[in-house]
């Protein structure tokens, strides 16, 4: 089951996930990250790496999160692969504490 990046990544984009990805399946927009489901090998290494718990294996998605499967598949095609860590977005730490992590 593919892994997907959900809401919490918005305005954070910590990118700790991309260094742990063994197959370079993360694509980054200016706002957030997406996983290419055709490249992801479902290893789950990225899940504990995300400081804001944005990454979920699709089998664990809540019903109201299901749309992220399609969004990741679609948006990953639009943005370039990033496989090295970047600085988080401005305000990421504030959003992180807002999210309770």
């Amino acid at each position, binding site marked *: 089951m593919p892994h997907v990046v959900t809401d919490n990544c918005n305005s954070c984009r910590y990118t*700790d996930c991309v*260094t*742990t*990805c*063994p*197959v*370079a399946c993360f694509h980054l927009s200016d706002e957030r990250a997406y996983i290419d489901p055709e490249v992801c*090998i*479902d*290893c*789950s*290494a*990225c*899940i*504990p*790496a995300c400081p804001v*718990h944005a990454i979920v*294996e699709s*089998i*664990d998605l809540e019903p109201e999160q299901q749309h992220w499967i399609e969004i990741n598949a679609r948006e990953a095609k639009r943005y370039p692969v990033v*496989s*090295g*860590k970047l600085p988080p977005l401005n305000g990421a730490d504030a959003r992180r504490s807002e999210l*309770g*992590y």
Partner: protein
Amino acid sequence: MLDFTRAELGTAGNPLKVAVVGSGPSGFYAAEALLQSRLTVEVDIIERLPVPYGLVRFGVAPDHAKLKSVTAVFQGIARDSRVRYFGNVTLGIDISIHQLTEMYHGVVVSTGASGDQRLNIEGEELEGVHAARDFVGWYNGHPDCASYHFDLSQEIVTVVGQGNVAIDVCRILSKSVDELRGTDIAEHALDALAGSRVREIHLVGRRGPVQAKFTSKELRELGTLEGWQPVIDPKDLELNAASLEELNNPNLANAKKNFEILKGFAEKPLDGRRPLYLDFLQTPVSLSGDHRLRAVTLERQRLEGDALNQVARATGERVVRPSGLLFRSVGYRGKEMPGVPFDDKRGVIRNKDGRVVDASGQRFPRLYTSGWIKRGPTGIIGTNRACSVDTVARLIEDLPMLEAARPGRNALTEYLGQRQQRVVSFADWLSIEQVELDRGRERKKVAEKLVSVSEMLAATDVAERAAA
């Protein structure tokens, strides 16, 4: 004398020459990190076996094919024109660490954790008591393990450990041969498993369901076995206050998920499938039998301490359970190599952020380490990518200290040639792989691995003759 004519290290005309020892994930990701730096580099990957990929080939279970597909990434790295693969070359036997640091600007040791942690209890030397990693190596066709024998005529098996390796062992023991037949599991393992009489498995660990290290993904898979049912004593799911606190810690999402899965297992009535008991808060204290294992004495544990710092303490309550086969899976452990500072307590190369240091903190010039031999056997394939990226960043920071000229690949090739070492190139590996794929096709399997070094070398000879 200063050489003012030489270009800066890491630029065209003066490439940074690095040897990476080990071709598992951490080795390949160290190579990748060097390739992705903006430097001009020359990277040589040195591997003890003829075949690459370390624990992806010999550790990842054969029924986890998708995970194994990461080898496509490694192949891409190996095929980069700046990389050369030297298979069948053993550090410490065919070449010393000292020689490598004379030949290369930097050396990254990424040899993984090739030993295992013992239980250190009475009876551990009995026949029928094994390291899980030997069993894993056996079913994955590791040349060191191909001739091992596991007595699968035993009916009750104990697996000690609370991590993914322990689960892998349980799953391979409990899947039917038909479920495994199409994978790249070694033929000798498939034959032995076909005659298995195992009908009861106990997965035993000293800690509770909230502390177990399984990833949810692996745990969940135990609920999907055709012929086996995971069984849990509901009492084990009654948590103390500290465990409840851990369960509600937002940073321990895996524990919460595991607990939900375990609750689901516990709620299912027994349905006649064979039982795979998940026994928490128990630890083996002695093993008994005549010359071979007959029984395991287990002692009930109780968790004490604050949340996140709980330790399992013996309660004195003991039970003796018959068991004819036991696999210990309480951790892998790095092995010391000659000339390299080693922390025997942790089973890792002494290092500070990947820079190798001795016991007094003195740098070992040019020597770096990454992966499990650097930080211990935790984390999965991708965790090692982040680890190797960090180590290579330290190496690149040190560039001014690494400037002295080094002959690199030419010197290694020449030296191994003089020794008449049979070096396996990456092209040779691809011909070994082709043989394995062809043999697999005949047997309707993904691949049939060659399980001895001599067979592997013979496969490259055949390919060379065909090309000549």
